[in-house]
């Protein structure tokens, strides 16, 4: 299983978790902690009843953005292994749009890397969410993508609780 993927297929968080755990277990101190994040499609958003979502990606750039996030995470938390899969196409309520898994010797790094990754995905990965709700549809407003914005990166790090 690749660590980074943009795919129309149903996502598997446990498969990705097993993959990062296996890689981390062969590294320095071994694998003592695996964290995962899954983002699911909610039935309600901003007071509207959501019917389904459609995600679109600029795949080659998205994979490079994943690689940048991995490099940033490795710089901040050496030794952690990170995997991220983002789904595209039509998603029903309750389905996962993204799964992230991080493995490390110790839990602080595994939590920080996983949280950092989702924050950065929302900042710089070229994926767009189109919401189909009762009575209409709309592209969801997001973040202006700037991969070299140091402030955004620091904000993601702060949310990852880098100091703990």
């Amino acid at each position, binding site marked *: 299983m690749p660590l980074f993927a943009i795919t129309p297929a149903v996502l598997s968080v446990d498969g990705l978790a097993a993959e990062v755990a296996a890689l981390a277990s062969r590294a320095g101190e071994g694998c003592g902690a695996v964290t995962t994040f899954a983002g699911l499609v909610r039935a309600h958003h901003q007071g509207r009843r959501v019917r389904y979502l459609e995600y*679109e990606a*600029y795949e080659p*750039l998205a994979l490079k953005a994943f690689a940048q996030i991995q490099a940033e995470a490795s710089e901040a938390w050496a030794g952690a292994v990170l995997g991220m899969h983002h789904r595209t196409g039509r998603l029903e309520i309750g389905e996962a749009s*993204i799964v992230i898994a991080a493995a490390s010797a110790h839990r602080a790094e595994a939590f920080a890397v996983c949280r950092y990754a989702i924050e950065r*995905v*929302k900042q710089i990965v*070229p994926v*767009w969410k189109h919401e189909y709700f009762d009575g209409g549809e709309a592209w969801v407003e*997001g*973040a202006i993508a700037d991969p070299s914005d140091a402030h955004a990166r620091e904000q993601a790090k702060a949310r990852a609780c880098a100091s703990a």
Partner: protein
Amino acid sequence: MRVRIKLFAQLRDRAATGDVACELPAVDAATVADVWDALIVMHPALTPFQSSVSSAVNAEYAKRQTRVHDGDEVAFLPPVSGG
């Protein structure tokens, strides 16, 4: 010189196409900004995105002043909303 423009999400919807062929004067120093300027001449409905659009050249993030060359793929990206 000729570049291929890719548009995504709202930009594609507004332009009613995701692929735009763009002919630029064969200047020495054409940039992403020049491509954008040519694009909004062809698709004025994209003008409101001027301040929020990001760009990529050959699937690498680029800046307004990034140089473009004949045959490049230049992508314009509205604010992202993945995750």
